[in-house]
């Protein structure tokens, strides 16, 4: 690294520290948004991913379970189960409900399923077991942490007492968390027997899903059947459409702030050192040499800021997860590499903005 480039920056240590701090915080923000996105993305569709069924049958036009309403009647559920080639048909009922602890009330995405069918339950248990009886419940880990629920405790769900028999992972969709009860209990809760949101279907070995789909879509009116891949894609698309624009907006603001801070520092450096630049120009410095110094300064600041941000990010993410358990962050090497590459690109952009000032530094300034 160029001596002049480094020494010029070091000559204003407070400004340098503040700049690196500001940029590092922007980077932390970007890393955090990506980590939250990844956490939400995984948490939102992990339930679907971990329930490997051949078909998801829902009411027509309900393409996903995240933001779609679907109600299947008892007759429809029975007809699906009778369709040719169906080995298992497991109805699942999703509904929003509330759990009370003291004066705190938490909303959950209550999932009623039939434990004996082996489908529709929690994707992963981090403690305990799945619900077997109607007075048992499995809570999401983040939700349990947030409300300080322990396994074996009882919870108050809309006036009913349920025992926590398990804690699940991969069930935090950020804005809401899954909880699992028996289908019978869920139906009892809404007071309408026989209803379900969807039916998870597994075909007989070797039968294929064609005849089932034909029966469901063509014969039974008002239903739609999706294979696992399509249904997963539908839900991911839905999750992205709701969450990504916000993330992108904040990330773009972070990037703009970062570029602005860096451009400002580099421009101020050039203005403060304009006599030095005029001297160097007079002494025969090629413009490329001067540009190189500014670019080196930008890259140096960006690199130190990235290192600072990475040092801050992981402990900070842990603290945030402890304070707000519903925030689940997942960071991958690809994400981090992407942010670092983006920051380096933005630092180059900043240096090009600042470099324009070099053109307006004149030889005669050295003689003034």
């Amino acid at each position, binding site marked *: 690294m160029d*001596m*002049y480039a480094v*020494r*010029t920056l*070091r*000559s204003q240590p407070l400004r340098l520290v503040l700049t690196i701090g500001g940029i590092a915080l922007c980077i932390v923000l970007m890393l955090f948004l990506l980590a939250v996105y990844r956490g939400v993305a995984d948490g939102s569709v992990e339930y679907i991913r971990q329930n490997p069924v051949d078909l998801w049958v829902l009411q027509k036009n309900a393409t996903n379970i995240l933001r779609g309403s679907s109600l299947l009647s008892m007759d429809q559920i029975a007809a699906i189960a009778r369709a040719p080639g169906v080995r298992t048909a497991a109805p699942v009922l999703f509904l929003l409900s509330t759990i009370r602890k003291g004066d705190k009330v938490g909303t959950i995405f209550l999932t009623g399923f039939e434990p004996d069918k082996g489908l529709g339950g929690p994707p992963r248990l981090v403690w305990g077991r799945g619900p077997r009886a109607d007075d048992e419940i499995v809570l999401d880990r983040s939700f349990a942490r947030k409300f300080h629920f322990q396994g074996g405790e009882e919870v108050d769900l809309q006036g009913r007492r349920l025992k926590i028999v398990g804690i699940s992972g991969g069930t935090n969709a950020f804005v809401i968390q899954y909880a699992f009860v028996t289908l019978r209990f869920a139906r009892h809760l809404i007071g309408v027997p026989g209803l379900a949101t969807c039916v998870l279907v597994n075909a007989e070995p070797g039968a294929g899903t064609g005849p089932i789909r034909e029966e469901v879509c063509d014969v039974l009116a008002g239903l739609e059947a999706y294979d696992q891949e399509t249904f997963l894609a539908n839900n991911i698309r839905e999750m992205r459409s709701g969450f990504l624009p916000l993330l992108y907006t904040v990330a773009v603001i972070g990037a703009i702030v970062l570029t602005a801070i860096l451009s400002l520092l580099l421009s101020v450096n050039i203005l403060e050192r304009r*006599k*030095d630049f005029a*001297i*160097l120009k*007079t*002494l*025969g*410095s*090629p*413009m490329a*040499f001067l540009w190189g110094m500014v670019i080196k300064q930008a890259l140096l600041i960006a690199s130190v800021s990235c290192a600072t941000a990475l040092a801050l990010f992981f402990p900070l993410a842990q603290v945030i997860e402890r304070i707000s358990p519903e925030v689940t962050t997942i960071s991958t090497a690809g994400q981090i590499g992407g942010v670092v590459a983006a920051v380096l690109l933005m630092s180059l952009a900043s240096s090009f903005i600042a470099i324009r000032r070099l053109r307006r530094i004149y*030889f*005669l300034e*050295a*003689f003034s």
Partner: protein
Amino acid sequence: MSGFETPGPVLRLEKVTKIFNGSGHPTTAVREVSLEARRGEMVLLLGPSGSGKTTLLTLVAGLTRPTSGSISLFGKSVEEYAAAELQSLRAEKIGFVFQTFLLIDSLTAAENIEIVLRFNGKRRAERAGKTRALLGELGIAYLADRFPRAMSQGEKQRVGIARAIANDAELLIADEPTGSLETRQAIDIISLLHGQAKTRNATGIVASHDLRLREFADRTLRLQDGMIG
């Protein structure tokens, strides 16, 4: 660099005029100046403050263009040099000494000299060797790692001279080189500059108001109101 070989005079100005148009009021800084300087010659431009000495130096170095007249540098009209060629010329053939030294305060003495050597593509080891040798030759090796703020005025100007000759300049341009120095330091510095120019057979164009510098010049030209009298 062989592109700037000079068979005739290193520098020739013919009826050069420079008019500045600041704030709509034209000011003639240099008026119909003609001069010539040969290899190894030391020319003193003597004149009071505001007489156009510095403007003339910037014209000589190709840093500004004349309003009228012609300037020939190393046998070629300044007009014919592209901007990049003039930059190369300054990096490889011209050395500058300033009144206020104009060392870069965030660099040590050695680095201030070395940075100029980078402009003409010298490798790191060559730069370091040449810088060390120059500092030794000028008797200021002890300043190598010192920053300008820790040097006396005389020391700063010695480093300034070392920087000016680091590129084996054929043309040394000095703007009031003793202007910020006490009498004894001034004599030391001009002696040094004169000695280095003669040793290297470099042409020196020195602008000053200091009459004592006449004894070091091969030729003295008096400048008054932008004209050579």
